[in-house]
């Protein structure tokens, strides 16, 4: 690599002058992919590094029956004990905790669910595609808790408008203040009779309902992998290097600016240094913060690592059976049939009224027409078999997704006593849910049970036990935006207050998360930050 006459000790200044790349992007998932998409279209030369390999999905996956697997579909006991989404079928798609461990107090479990592949978690997300509203962006103005974002809904709306057509979001416009409408492929499907009954019961209690808002994508994916990176590559302005495990962001001691990264090849562990004029971090919420902490940068505020939050999830919160649909007596059909389909009830608490024992609110993702699991029936043997068969396709189920309050003491830090397979110090995660979340969960379950009873449905099981933090894979905060360098890591453009050529564009920048799935907001923030960055570079400001 060294030019003739070079002794290997050229000044950083000289190397910077020779760098081939304008922007170095860390991570190829939703946020990194969107940064590449937006920047390369404006002529910015980008180098993207990702810790994972490229995947050939046709060769990497094979159809199998459960009995063909080593553990008959149960999975290897003890493997991926924090990844409740893991099955024996998909176990190899998740990050191996023994390779990239993290630590936590045993009394405060955290489910850190990670993917290291080109495309990141956008390969596997549930595709639920929502906008945040000013109930989140101006949350402090509304209820006095925490902090506002440094931006309002109107600042991000033009970017949601651009992101939704790329991901082909299907939804229905309902004019809900707490769940702004978007640029949708209009969902004109009808409702089954059961769903009409449930929606009417909710409406009587002031609970709105809309169709699920879903990224349709193209082909089998709605991912950075197929919707963003191909277009970015087509510009000729993007270079992607897979299997690059970034260890630290390097900073020029003279200028205080980021000048590149040191990374290790995933397989050989060979260390390399890459340079660029600007560094954009989109490695996923906690990996981005881990990288900044390990690099010892961007933390003059002392806030880096704090205000970790997500959404708590209660799956199968209320499981019920629709009596008229037992024994296959009523046809299943989303539109015009008796049972089937589902909906989404966005936050309805603490909007115009004030609850006694919790702030903020929760959303409900519900469906009819499923089959209740055998565990709900107080039977065994042939009687159980008959009951399961009788209720096949006659079920109601709902997942509760609740807002978690960002708290300063909900935090991550580097644990230097433990390192990953590449010798990089791991994260120690310290967080737990509190009475605000628990009280919200109780309210959700009581509300759902009441709705089921109103509909005349038989409740088989109910519970308000949420999964440990992290389960939703919606980890947010720890590198938050703000109006002041004293209380935040990033300014309103996702730009480090401390290092002006450093941007962090993923979920770590969130101030609050609401109860909505965050991917559309992450994509929109990344696009907005990238537009700003490109303009600043054009002006010579960066």
């Amino acid at each position, binding site marked *: 690599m060294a030019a003739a006459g070079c002794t290997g000790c050229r000044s950083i200044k000289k190397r910077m002058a020779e760098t081939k790349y304008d922007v170095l992007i860390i991570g190829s998932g939703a946020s990194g992919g969107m940064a590449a998409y937006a920047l390369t279209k404006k002529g910015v030369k980008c180098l993207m590094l990702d810790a994972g390999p490229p995947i050939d999905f046709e060769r*990497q996956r094979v159809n199998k029956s459960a009995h063909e697997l080593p553990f008959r579909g149960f999975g290897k006991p003890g493997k991926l004990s924090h990844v409740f989404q893991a099955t024996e079928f998909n176990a190899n798609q998740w990050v191996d905790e023994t390779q990239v461990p993290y630590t936590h107090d045993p009394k405060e479990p955290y489910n850190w669910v990670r993917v290291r592949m080109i495309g990141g978690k956008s390969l596997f997300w549930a595709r639920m595609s929502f906008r945040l509203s000013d109930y989140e962006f101006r949350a402090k103005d509304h209820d006095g808790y925490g902090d506002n974002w440094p931006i309002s809904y109107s600042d991000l709306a033009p970017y949601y408008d651009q992101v939704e057509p790329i991901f082909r979001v299907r939804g229905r416009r309902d004019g809900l203040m707490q769940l702004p409408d978007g640029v949708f492929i209009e969902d004109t499907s009808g409702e089954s009779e059961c769903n009409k009954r449930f929606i009417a019961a909710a409406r009587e209690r002031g609970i709105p309902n809309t169709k699920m808002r879903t990224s349709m994508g193209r082909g089998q994916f709605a991912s950075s992998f197929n919707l963003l990176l191909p277009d970015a590559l087509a510009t000729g302005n993007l270079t992607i290097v897979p299997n690059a495990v970034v260890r630290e962001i390097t900073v020029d001691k003279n200028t205080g600016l980021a000048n590149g990264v040191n990374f290790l090849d995933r397989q050989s562990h060979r260390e390399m240094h890459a340079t660029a004029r600007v560094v954009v971090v989109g490695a996923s919420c906690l990996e981005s913060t881990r990288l900044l902490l390990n690099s010892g940068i961007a933390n003059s505020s002392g806030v880096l690592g704090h205000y970790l939050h997500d959404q708590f999830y209660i799956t199968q919160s209320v499981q019920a059976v629709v009596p008229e649909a037992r024994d296959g007596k009523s046809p299943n059909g989303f539109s015009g049939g008796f049972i089937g389909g589902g909906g989404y009830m966005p936050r309805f608490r603490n909007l115009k009224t004030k609850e006694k024992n919790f702030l903020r609110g929760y959303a409900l993702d519900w469906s009819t027409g499923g089959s209740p699991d055998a565990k709900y029936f107080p039977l065994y043997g042939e009687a159980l078999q008959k009951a399961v068969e009788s209720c096949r396709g006659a079920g109601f189920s709902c997942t509760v997704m609740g807002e978690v309050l960002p708290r300063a003491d909900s935090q991550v830090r580097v644990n230097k006593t433990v390192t990953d397979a590449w010798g990089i110090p791991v994260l120690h995660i310290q967080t737990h849910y509190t009475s605000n979340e628990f009280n919200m969960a109780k309210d959700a379950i009581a509300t759902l049970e009441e709705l089921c009873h109103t509909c005349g449905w038989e409740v088989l099981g109910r519970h308000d036990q949420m999964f440990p933090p992290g389960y939703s894979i919606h980890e947010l905060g720890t590198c938050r935006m703000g109006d002041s360098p004293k209380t935040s890591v990033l300014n309103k453009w996702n730009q480090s207050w401390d290092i002006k050529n450093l941007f962090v564009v993923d979920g770590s920048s969130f101030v609050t998360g609401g109860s909505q799935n965050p991917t559309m907001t992450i994509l929109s923030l990344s696009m907005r930050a990238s537009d700003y960055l490109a303009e600043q570079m054009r002006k010579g400001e960066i």
Partner: protein
Amino acid sequence: MKRRRFIQALAATPAAPALLAQQVQPSQQAPPAPPPAEASLRYSLPDAAAEPVLHFFTAQQFAALRKLSDLLMPPVNGAPGALEAKAPEFLDFLLSQSPADRQQLYRSGLDGLNAQARKRFNKLFADVDAGQTDTLLAPLRDPWSYDAPADPVAAFLRAVKDDVRRATTNSREWNLAASAGRTRDGGGGLYWLPID
């Protein structure tokens, strides 16, 4: 090796004439068709060809587990039951690989069932009759709750009810029955191969 020496060396070997003939006298016949690039071999799973060797449970525990498995998941309408699916044998393997708390749940649960059978009916669980098993399995008629029962036998019964069902419906025998139209499909899907 130069060509001349190579031919001399070949001439010194018994097979040399044939080899030389191949080299210097091309056949006038069309060469035989090459074998397929990827030979299609068929393999069997070990369950189709052999019996599992048991490691984990004691003889009394395993006898209780077999009896319990048959009660929990009997053959119904042509679908195989737990015994035909070798669910108890599979669970012996699975538990041998499981964390200590899960192993303890099973061992104490099966021992507890045997102790209750002995106390109430003066025999082991494997030997009780239908009416007696109904008494011993009463906790399975309690309504579902999220938290596991405090009683270790009741907690075990709840766990084994799920495990026996899953070990049966995910078995080779269940899969064959589904292929023959005698039951619904068992589990299946896209399996991720290990990433290099």
